[in-house]
Every structure is written in structure tokens, then in C-alpha cells.
């Protein structure tokens, strides 16, 4: 069980075929125009303007619309018009599936309700984030889904500790990290003591006893748990409008310090004897 999107859920339930979903996605691609294409279709910008924006984006990380403003190609009002048109004309995957006859219109609401129920265990519960931290909701998603993965995949009993701002993160038996790129530039860090490391390995390997496993395998299991957590965080974040990619997991040997131009958050998971922490190291963008 994992965070899913509607089309995937329908395929897994045997409601739509792979071909049906691909037809619907192709229709979405033709209707849901990117900002530049929409602005051009509205006669507000030219192909030459689009090239200018793309060139400027090579040296400055800015959304297409914002770059149009910076370059004086669009006024703020025109940018709002384009965004409004994108919103009004947006074709959701359910509607697209109906349009390509992959599902019946009268069944859509029922399938959506079933999907919502299937995904209810992954609804994000509130996590208090210190004031002033950028993209706070994204870190709520990250923390809450990390807690859920520890509960459901590892079967760990713990109490959620309060999130705090930190300047550094101490060493632990295993510390692993995953880089996140896109809307944010951040590093997701998972730090576990030996007992929890073994509990994770038992859960991931589906073995009762991991005492004879080499350390490499135990650490790898912790990396895989982080991979699962981060993949599901990205899936949920994308549903919420963020654009995020993740890099393969890495082992962290040295103590970690908060980025000079950013901040770091610590989410402790309190257990009886073990130390488990999730850290988020955020670069300023």
C-alpha cells in the first residue's frame, strides 16, 4: 500500500486498461497547456518571447510566468489571465478517462470515492513546523509520511516528538540521506540507532532474524526504508502542486550542519531505548 494517483489506482483495480490510461493522458497533454503555450495561444507572447524566457531560465531559477514579468514580456494582470485560463481549462485525469471512453461518466464519482477511501490512510495529519520555515506544508507531508512508514512498514512503536530548528545533527549508528530537487532544494536525512536499524532490516527483508546479516545489508535496508518514505513523500507533494525529484540514497559519514544559507529541522521519534530522527536540511532558493 502506498500513495497513488487516480489512474494508477484504476489500473490496479482492473477498471481501466494501460492503453485507456495512456489515451487519457495524451488527451490531458493536448488540453493542459504549459504556461508559455497557453500565453501564446492567447496571443500574449510569441515564439521569440518563449525562447527569450528559456534562455533567461538557464541562468536564473524562476518559473516561466515570473520570468515573463521580470523580462517585461507580460504584465502582472496578463500573467493572472493566463493562470486563470489554465485553471478553467484544466482537464483532470478522471474527466479525461471519461472523454476517451475508458470509464463511464456515471461511474466516475463512485471510483473517485473508492480511491479517496483507499488513500485515506495517507491523508496528511498536521505537524507543527517552526514559524518562518519556507514550504512548511511540504515538511508536514514529509514528517507525517515518515511517521506513517515507521508505523506501517517497520511496525515501530514511538511517540512523535516536537519539530525543532537545529544547527547540526549528531552521529548515530546509521545516518542516510536523500537529495530533493525542484520546487525546493533539500536533503532528507534518516538517523537510527542499532536496535531500530535491525528492526527496519527485519521488516524490509521480511526475516525474523537479521543478527547474522552483514552491516552492509542492514544499512541498505535503512536506505530502502528512506527510499520508500521519500518516494511516497514526493508522490503526495506532487499531488499538492510541488515539483520534486529525488536522487538515489547515500550513506552519511560526517556530522551534518544546517546549510549556511538555509535552515534545518529535526523530527524526533521517541521510543523506549532507541534514537530515531528525521532531519530536513533546506537550502534557501
Amino acid at each position, binding site marked *: 500500500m502506498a500513495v497513488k494517483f487516480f*489512474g494508477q489506482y484504476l489500473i490496479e483495480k482492473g477498471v481501466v486498461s494501460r492503453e485507456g490510461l495512456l489515451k487519457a493522458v495524451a488527451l490531458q497533454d493536448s488540453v493542459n497547456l504549459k504556461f508559455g503555450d497557453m500565453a501564446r495561444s492567447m496571443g500574449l507572447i510569441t515564439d521569440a518571447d518563449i525562447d527569450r524566457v528559456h534562455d533567461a531560465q538557464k541562468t536564473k531559477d524562476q518559473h516561466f510566468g515570473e520570468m515573463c514579468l521580470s523580462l517585461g514580456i507580460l504584465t502582472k494582470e496578463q500573467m493572472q489571465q493566463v493562470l486563470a485560463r489554465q485553471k478553467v481549462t484544466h482537464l483532470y485525469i478522471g474527466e479525461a478517462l471519461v472523454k476517451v471512453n475508458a470509464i463511464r461518466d456515471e461511474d466516475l464519482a463512485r471510483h473517485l470515492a473508492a480511491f479517496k477511501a483507499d488513500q485515506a490512510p495517507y491523508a496528511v495529519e498536521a505537524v507543527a513546523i517552526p514559524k518562518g520555515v519556507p514550504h512548511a506544508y511540504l515538511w508536514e507531508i514529509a514528517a507525517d509520511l515518515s511517521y506513517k512508514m515507521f508505523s506501517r512498514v517497520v511496525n515501530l512503536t514511538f511517540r512523535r516528538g516536537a519539530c525543532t530548528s537545529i544547527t547540526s545533527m549528531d552521529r548515530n549508528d546509521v545516518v542516510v540521506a536523500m537529495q530533493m530537487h525542484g520546487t525546493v532544494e533539500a536533503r532528507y536525512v534518516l538517523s537510527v540507532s542499532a536496535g531500530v536499524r535491525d528492526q527496519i532490516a527485519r521488516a524490509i527483508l521480511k526475516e525474523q532474524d537479521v543478527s547474522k546479516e552483514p552491516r552492509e545489508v542492514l544499512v541498505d535496508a535503512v536506505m530502502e526504508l528512506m527510499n520508500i518514505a521519500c518516494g*511516497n513523500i514526493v*508522490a503526495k507533494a506532487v499531488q499538492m502542486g510541488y515539483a520534486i525529484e529525488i*536522487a538515489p540514497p547515500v550513506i552519511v559519514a560526517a556530522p551534518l550542519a544546517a546549510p549556511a544559507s538555509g535552515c534545518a529541522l529535526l523530527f524526533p521519534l521517541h521510543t523506549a531505548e532507541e534514537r530515531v530522527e528525521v532531519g530536513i536540511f533546506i537550502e534557501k532558493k
Partner: protein
Amino acid sequence: MKDSVRLFVPYRSGEGKMKKKVIIVDDSIAVARQLEKIIAESDEFEVLAQARNGAEAIKLYQGKKPDIVCMDMNMPLMDGLTALRTLLALDRSAKVVMITSLGGVGDKYTEALKLGARDVISKPFQPEDVLRVLRAL
């Protein structure tokens, strides 16, 4: 980086029917072990070899010609979608199933299907999820 391909000896069942041969491509030893166990315990499939990145997978596929490839998306050196594209350019009939924690990301899921993946399994998965998909191929 040293070659981390693992090869297995093909097994013939008692009824004389060859099992479908699978190669597993995942940088995680833990996931590869989990998949190997699920597949080994089935009557219909067997693991032929394991690779830990896309580049190794392509080399392995050309040499071993497996029936099915189970491949992760997020891997070092060559990611799963790049490997999928390359593999299908070499053999349009290759049966590739992506097994990934990014299955819930709509763009990744549909990109894999557009490129020609036969199915996408999200992590965490259960043994029955994997066997259901492999049996449907």
C-alpha cells in the same frame, strides 16, 4: 565501480516445464533479496540474475535474454527510465516491470507506461502484488 551483477543457475521444475526467467535490477540489496525470495518461492518464475543499475541491466539483458525484467527507477549511474528506453530500443518485445517508490508520481508512472513498461508496482509492495503482475505478462 566494480561490476555487481549476480548470476543464478536456471532451475527446471519436476514437471519439465521451464520457469519464466526474471532479472532483477535494483541498487538496493534488500529489495533485490525480497524480490528474489518472492520469485524463488513461486512455481512459475525464477531469478536468472541481478544488476544494481541500468547500465548493468542492459548488458545483462543482451547476454541472458530473460523473459521478464523487474527494474527500479531511482538508481545511480543509469536510472530506470533511461534503462527502460534503451532496453526497448534494443528489443521492442522486452517485458519490463518497474518496481519503484515513485509509482505514485503520476508523471513517472505514465512516462514508464508510455515508454513501454508493461506495469508499474509501487513500493512498499506485498508478494501477491508482484506475482499478480508477473502472471499477467
